[in-house]
């Protein structure tokens, strides 16, 4: 089992495999995005309370989900990298951070856009938005730590450690912020037993969520490949690759 993992996680193997996957992932992301956006922005009915402005949830909610999901993925990859010293896992953790920060920023901006018609202000200190802002700080901390440490191998292990510490703290931070202020709407989507939103509204939301997930994998693969080439530039496989591409 471990042997299989180490083989799959070896940089040259991953590089070759991910190269085959990338076009497909990109295409699927694009298709799902078109379907989800059409469903959400055009096909879904108008909300009787919030009018058209609710449609921003098709970006906001999946982005907010992704912001947490990617942090978890980053911490998990970091833990694997720290424990089994798998380089690929370290790289995945490092490369996840900017994507996660991007989604967090997207969630913040769309949340603020949504807030203007809802609450009449671009920013309110609502619990979820505040937690999201703190999450952005956590991502920025991870990214700046990586940049600050010159030895990239050491830097990625430091990042992994920080991501793990952050993972333990995120629930605590979220819970604290909820305690501090509970103004936001309750979570409506997870109540599947008694769906409180229309299926035509829900379906595009789920499609968008899947689209964002696949986008993450796609963007992650692209980043990891570049990072691997950069880090392993002295190894045999990168030199061979370079040689091949020059001949072609």
């Amino acid at each position, binding site marked *: 089992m471990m042997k299989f993992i180490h083989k799959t996680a070896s940089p040259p193997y991953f590089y070759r495999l991910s190269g085959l996957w990338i076009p497909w992932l990109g295409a699927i992301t694009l298709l799902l995005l078109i379907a989800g956006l059409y469903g959400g922005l055009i096909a879904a009915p108008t909300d009787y309370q919030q009018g058209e402005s609710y449609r921003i949830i098709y970006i906001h909610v999946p982005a907010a989900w992704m912001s947490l999901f990617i942090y978890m993925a980053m911490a998990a990859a970091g833990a694997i990298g720290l424990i089994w010293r798998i380089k690929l896992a370290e790289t995945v953790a490092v490369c996840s951070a900017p994507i996660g920060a991007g989604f967090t920023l997207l969630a913040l901006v769309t949340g603020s856009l949504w807030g203007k018609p809802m609450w009449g202000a671009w920013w309110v200190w609502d619990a979820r938005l505040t937690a999201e802002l703190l999450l952005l700080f956590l991502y920025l901390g991870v990214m700046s730590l990586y940049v600050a440490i010159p030895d990239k*191998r050491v830097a990625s292990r430091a990042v992994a450690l920080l991501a793990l510490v952050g993972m333990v703290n995120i629930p605590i931070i979220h819970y604290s912020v909820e305690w501090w202020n509970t103004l936001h709407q309750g979570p409506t989507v997870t109540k599947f037993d008694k769906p409180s939103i229309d299926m035509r509204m829900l379906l595009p939301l789920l499609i968008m969520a899947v689209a964002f997930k696949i986008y993450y994998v796609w963007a992650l693969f692209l980043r990891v490949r570049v990072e691997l080439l950069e*880090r392993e530039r002295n190894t045999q496989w990168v030199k061979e690759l370079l040689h091949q591409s020059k001949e072609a």
Partner: protein
Amino acid sequence: MMSLEVRDLSCIRDDRILFSDVNINLFSGQLLLVEGDNGSGKTSLLRILCGIRLPEQGQVTWVRQSDDQKSSIAVHGQESYAGEMAFLGHLDGNKLDLSVTENLEFSRSLALGNNNTIKDVLERVGLEHFDDLQVSNLSAGQRRRLALARLLLSGAYLWILDEPFTALDKKGIAMVEREINAQLEQGGLVIMTSHHSVSFDNDKVIKLSLSQ
């Protein structure tokens, strides 16, 4: 009997391969002299051997062997040397605002310990008249001597010394050589780097040359 086994060690720093496929077998009573130009990775090798730095590849194993028992410990694992190794790096590790004796008292509580008393080791390194002085008042050579006194208190089997002769005068160098010989005779192991030429019995010395 103790020994240190190093297998296929390699080290990369800032994208440069410092060394690769280093293999070492060092046994009780032997000294490993690591040689190489500036920047050849001597310090990195020593820091990997003492467990501070992770190697890019390879294993370092510390083996304890008695008549009927043998136990091996991965140096980069949880247990590491468990105090059986003492390291002297470029930095002396002294607290400047503590006195010589206070420094050694603290080191003693950290170490496994042996029969040497603080007074004893201060005499051996030639600091017996400075025991109450704050380290900030000592010269660089004297501070190095204090660091060596710590080594003598440690009770460690394996000494890893990075340029132990730095800042020492002739007498100091002779003193360190004497103490290293004593350590080897007691069945200890020593790994060191040095720019000075050293005089030890040739049958005890293993040389490792790091060169590109």
